[in-house]
């Protein structure tokens, strides 16, 4: 094709290929600056993500291994009373069946975070696709989708979840699809509103005027413009989905044994509270650190909206 190495095929002349950011009057690049709290939050989330990926290799025991004879042992080394040489070490004790708590939390990170991320991604795929479709697809499609969505949104999430699970039972795929569909309703609303805003803007009108197709407008104008607000919302939605799925698991209607899941771990070890065991508290703390951190990051990112006059003067 092209012999000149400086000009890959289809390259425009240098003057036209200048990027938007390099123009002399381009707005200053926005940089994401986090506060100290935000940085701590980011490292906590990163920590849990690492655990999700390398969990099985760093966990001292398998999630289903019953390693101690006693339930709710304290932290430390535990030796079998029948075979004194068989000892096992538990950093934060064991659960109600004598399984190593730390290992179960590490394995549980995979289930809890994996299911939640899968559901959030699903919710976004459904919600954003339909939301943009409603925004660009004309009044009829918009009204139809929005009314349908309104009906679903006006039921409490957990009630919808309970009815679905009462009807078809609970497996991990069902859980992901249920949570994904339930939360797609909210994503739909947000994506539709954002896309509608972009659709009525002057630059879209200009693009349509010079003959760009609908698909081009969606790809080049709508998606880049709604990406940032949606990304912030993704974090929030993830928190809600973690809370939702672990609440279902806590009710015994989410992830089923023998899989370890933070929500169901709190439930199954609840009796340990009376003995002052860490078993029900530790998984709850794990959930709390994760969700609080995500929330803090979202808050930090969206706090850069610039101080209004009233805020500064009062």
């Amino acid at each position, binding site marked *: 094709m092209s012999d000149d190495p400086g000009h890959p095929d289809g390259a425009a002349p240098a003057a036209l290929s200048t990027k938007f950011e390099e123009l002399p009057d381009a707005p200053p690049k926005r940089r994401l600056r986090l506060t100290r709290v935000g940085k701590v939050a980011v490292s906590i989330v990163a920590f849990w993500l690492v655990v999700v990926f390398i969990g099985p290799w760093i966990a001292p025991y398998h999630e289903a291994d019953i390693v101690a004879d006693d339930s709710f042992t304290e932290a430390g080394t535990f030796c079998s009373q029948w075979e004194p040489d068989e000892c096992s070490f538990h950093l934060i004790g064991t659960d109600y069946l004598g399984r190593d708590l730390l290992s179960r939390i590490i394995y549980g990170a995979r289930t809890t975070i994996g299911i939640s991320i899968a559901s959030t991604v699903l919710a976004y795929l459904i919600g954003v696709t339909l939301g943009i479709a409603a925004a660009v697809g004309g009044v009829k499609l918009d009204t139809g989708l929005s009314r349908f969505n309104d*009906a679903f949104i*006006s039921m409490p999430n957990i*009630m919808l979840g*309970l*009815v679905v699970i009462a009807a078809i039972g609970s497996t991990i795929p069902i859980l992901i699809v249920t949570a994904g569909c339930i939360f797609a309703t909210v994503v739909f609303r947000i994506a539709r509103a954002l896309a509608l805003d972009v659709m009525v803007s002057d630059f879209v009108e200009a693009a349509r005027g010079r003959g760009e197709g609908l698909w081009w407008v969606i790809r080049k104008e709508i998606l880049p413009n709604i990406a940032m607000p949606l990304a912030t919302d993704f974090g929030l939605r993830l928190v809600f989905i973690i809370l939702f799925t672990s609440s279902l698991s*806590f*009710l015994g209607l989410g992830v089923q044994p023998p899989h370890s899941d933070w929500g169901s771990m709190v439930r199954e070890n609840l009796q340990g*509270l009376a003995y002052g065991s860490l078993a029900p508290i530790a998984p*709850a703390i794990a959930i709390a650190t994760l969700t609080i951190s995500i929330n803090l990051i979202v808050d930090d990112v969206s706090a850069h909206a610039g101080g209004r*006059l009233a805020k500064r003067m009062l």
Partner: protein
Amino acid sequence: MMWRMVLRRVGIGIVTLWVVSVLMFAGTEILPGDVAQIMLGQDATPENLAALRGALGLDKPAVVRYFEWLGDMARFDLGMSLAGTTGSGGGGTTIEVLIGARLQNTLLLAGVVAAISVPLSVALGLVAAMFPTSPFDRAVTFTTLCLVAVPEFFVATLLVLIFAVQLNWLPAIATMREFESVGQMLRSMALPIITLCVVLLAQMARMTRAAVLNVMSSPYIEMAILKGVPRRRIILRHALFNAIGPVVNIIALNLAYLVSGVVIVETIFAFPGLAKLMVDGVQVRDMPLVQACGMIFCATYVVLILISDIASIVSNPRLRHPR
């Protein structure tokens, strides 16, 4: 004009309730294996199944059963619990009997929680919004941010650990047996009440703060600041009245949130309320019971959302004239 908008909104609410009832009913229809199978369990021979289905009316077409069910619901005839739930007698009890006392318990719980948390959270949010970026505001913002992000059962387990296990002040299980005094009853309900209050308080205070700050950053407040109106006067004369609409909206929304909050809290404290009944029903797949409870919860939720929407229509003249 305004009343037409409100009526329209009420109409949408009624349609929504109808759609909810269809979905609730559809929930049973996709069930693999019906209630007759669950009731008979091991003894399910084809003849037994057919006989029981006939007796329960399960052999009629779905549409017929839907309208029968809807008619019964409208007359508050909730039908029979098919499978019978744990701790409340065998199968064949009427659902009204099961629900009656439990509905009262749940309403009592929700009522006390609302009575405590609504005034407290609105006050917290208002004060925080009046002094933005003050240490008090920062403390409120940070604490509530953390609290809204944790699951209800986290708050509940922590409270049990502190007040029931360590200090031994309050009972960890909220049994609603016969009580000698109101004080004794409240003591037994204390932990569920505190848990729900904490969660609700955080959410409401946060939203109230945001709503008031939103009003405070509107142009007419800037104008008032610039012309030198004293701060007290700005807040009391200009900001407060304009924040009433959003705040009522927030209260109604959060009371609607209580509907899902009670599910977790009643389960963790074994509180004999409606939500616990529903969760038990889900576990044994007692669909008529789940439907009845679900309809009560969803209806409450829809009505509260309706109230919150009407509050914002009435309070904001601009919403009365949609473009």
